[in-house]
C-alpha cells in the first residue's frame, strides 16, 4: 500500500470567494500581513501497489477535480 495525496486548487483566473472570505477575516481576528488566501481540497488515498500513475492521474482529472475550474497535483508520499 502507498499513500497518495491529491491537491485540488481553483485555477488562478477563477474567482475564489471562499478564499477571499478567509483572507478578509484574518485582519479582523488580529492576524496581519496575509495578503491572499486561496482555498482548495486535499485528498489522501491509500492505494494498492499495482495502481499506476496514469490511473491516479485519471482519477484526479475526471473525478476529484473539474479541470474547467480547478488544477490538480498527484503526489506519492511515504506513509
Amino acid at each position, binding site marked *: 500500500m502507498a499513500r497518495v495525496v491529491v491537491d485540488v486548487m481553483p485555477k488562478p483566473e*477563477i*474567482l475564489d470567494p*471562499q478564499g477571499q472570505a478567509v483572507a478578509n477575516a484574518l485582519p479582523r481576528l488580529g492576524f496581519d500581513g496575509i495578503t491572499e488566501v486561496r482555498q482548495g481540497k486535499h485528498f489522501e488515498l491509500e492505494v494498492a501497489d499495482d495502481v499506476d500513475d496514469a490511473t491516479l492521474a485519471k482519477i484526479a482529472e475526471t473525478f476529484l477535480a*473539474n479541470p*474547467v*475550474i480547478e488544477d490538480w497535483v498527484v503526489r506519492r508520499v511515504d506513509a
Partner: protein
Amino acid sequence: MRVGVITFPGTLDDVDAQRAVKYADAEAVPLWHADHDLKGVDAVIVPGGFSYGDYLRCGAIARFAPVMQEVIEAANKGMPVLGICNGFQILCEAHLLPGALTRNSKLHFVCRDQWLKVENNQTAWTTRYDKDAEILVPLKSGEGGYQADQHTLDELEGEGRVVFRYVGENPNGSRNNIAGITSANGRIVGLMPHPEHAIEALTGPTDDGLGMFLSLVDSVVKA
C-alpha cells in the same frame, strides 16, 4: 409525448418538474438514478436539488449515475434534455454543456424571483418565447456562478448559445451575466433559475416558466 424526470438521492424539484410537464399536456415519467433505463421517453429533465448531497462538487457524483450514462448517450443522438439548477450543474459535469458552476461570488445562498432575458428562442425548450422577452422566475442556489474560459465564452456568445441572461444586478458572479446556455444543436439547455416553479399564478410569481415545457412539446411533436 413522454418526458422523463430523474430523481437522485437528494433531488428536491422532481415533483414540481413533473407537474410542469403535466401542465404542458405531456406525460411525466419518473426516472430513477440507479436504473440504466430511460423508459422510452422523448425528452429528459434533470431537476434541481442536492444530488448525492452535492459532495465533492455539485453534480460531480450524479454525473456517474447509471441513468446519466443513458442520458448522455441519448443526448448525443439529439434527445432534448433540460437541466435546471443542480441539473445544469450535472449536465456541465457530464460535459453535455461547457463550463462549470461555482460558489456565488458573495457566498450567500440566493433565493429570490429573478428577471431573465430570453436571448435564444430557437432551442428545443424556448420557441414559445419572443426573442429578448423578459421573464420572472425563482432563482435559488448557492453555487450558481457560471464560469468558463474566455475561448468557451467567446464561442457561446458568437454562436448565440447564451439562452438566458440575468437582467439587472448579477446575482451570483456568473460571467457575462449568463443564467442559461444551450448545446451546439440547441437540444440541450441548462439554466440555474427554476422555470418549473413559475407555471401558474397560484404557486409561482408568474406563469413565465411554462413556455419552456410547451416549447418542448412543440419541438417533439414537430420532429
